[in-house]
């Protein structure tokens, strides 16, 4: 496939990358390229300048915040790095579990966490996961650094809080406290395919958080279900009762894989499964 002509730069520092992104209209950050190169083939995106982040080694680290309360994942960390990270295994293993179900080995070797969230395809794995875990996103520009919550970060289909001239540098995920359980459930096309509906639940002493994927342009929190479960009864009957009406409260899209009504139903079923599994894991 022939791509449209494009300029290419591979900056050595984050500052240089941000300068390039802010100086050129039509500049676009290139992370792993597993989505961007393919949408460029389809001419769905035609950037004039690609700013390749490959050499920004400071964005390829997984570490703990100074107070150890968060796992800090650099935007250029690949899915394969997440899967094999000892820090992730200790602090938030759900990240590795989910990363291992994204596409296939070759794509996991190149595809990055930052790229995945910046695409914000509603069927992607990380948006609902990071929304449920309460992740914080660090965005840099020539005028400095700012942070965004998941609610602020995911703006619309293929749109995030990262605007022109800005760069997502880091995603901070709270470390798992004892007695916390996380789980992702959903319906995919094939074993490791694209999600048709997905749900992520995290159960802790602070309560239950549930985020749904694929049902809107951004991850959707199942707030009513969360409130109903606040009492702490996470028996199967209680979780099913708490999910009642969830499908009807959604306005999901219809496509060739599922119409709106069926997708809503799948989301509700996924939410129940995710909460039950998270509750089981929270027991330790």
């Amino acid at each position, binding site marked *: *496939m*022939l*791509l*449209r*002509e*494009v*300029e*290419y730069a*591979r900056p050595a520092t984050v500052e240089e990358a941000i300068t390039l992104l802010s100086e050129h209209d039509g500049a676009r950050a*290139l992370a792993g*390229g*597993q989505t961007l*190169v*393919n949408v460029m*083939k389809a001419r769905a995106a035609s950037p004039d300048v*690609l700013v*390749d982040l*490959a050499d920004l080694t400071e964005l390829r680290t997984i570490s703990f915040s100074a107070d150890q309360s968060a796992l800090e994942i650099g935007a250029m960390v690949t899915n*394969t790095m997440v899967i094999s990270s000892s820090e992730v295994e200790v602090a938030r293993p759900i990240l590795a579990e989910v990363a291992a179900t994204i*596409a*296939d*080995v*070759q*794509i996991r*070797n*190149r595809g990055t966490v930052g790229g995945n969230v910046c695409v914000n395809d509603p069927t992607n794995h990380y948006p609902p996961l990071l929304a449920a875990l309460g992740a914080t996103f660090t965005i840099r520009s020539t005028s400095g650094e700012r942070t965004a919550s998941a609610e602020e970060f995911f703006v619309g289909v293929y749109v995030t809080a990262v605007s022109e001239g800005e760069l997502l540098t880091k995603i901070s995920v709270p470390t798992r406290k004892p007695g916390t359980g996380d789980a992702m459930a959903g319906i995919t096309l094939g*074993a*490791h395919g694209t999600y048709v509906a997905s749900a992520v639940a995290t159960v802790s002493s602070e309560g239950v958080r549930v985020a749904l994927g694929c049902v809107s342009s951004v991850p959707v929190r199942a707030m009513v279900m969360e409130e109903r479960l606040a009492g702490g009864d996470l028996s199967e009957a209680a979780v099913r009762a708490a999910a009642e009406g969830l499908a009807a409260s959604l306005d999901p899209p219809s496509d060739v894989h599922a119409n709106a009504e069926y997708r809503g139903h799948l989301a509700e079923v996924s939410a129940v499964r995710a909460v039950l599994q998270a509750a089981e894991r929270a027991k330790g």
Partner: protein
Amino acid sequence: MEINGTSYERDVPASLLLVHFLRDDLDLTGTHVGCDTGSCGACTVQLGDEAIKSCCMLAVQADGASITTVEGLASDEGELTPLQQSFHEYHALQCGYCTPGMLMSATALLEKNPRPSEHEVKVALQGNICRCTGYWNIIEAVVAVGEKGTR
């Protein structure tokens, strides 16, 4: 970049995909173009020690990198690697279109995990589609190399 141990220096447009650079500029046509959308895995090569899809990477992104293609497996004298020999013995190919990609994915697996289980082989080959063999002979061929303890 270094490809199969040989250094190459070329000026290429930034829009050129790595797979086209390998095939059209360097005449390394063992790497195939299948779907051109990152689904089929026929274009799989090794970047460093990792299997990647060369249709989802620009040639300029591989500037300075070390790439291994299927041509880099057998020796200059034509001696097959144990994996290639195993593909031959287990009839792990029919039309052969997917074979270079299968070999590169399986080679990367065996380098990291010399004795993979059947499940591990299936996971490693998830990104490679074969429309002839029904996969079984391919999986058996890779598992057999591990059992023999050689690549």
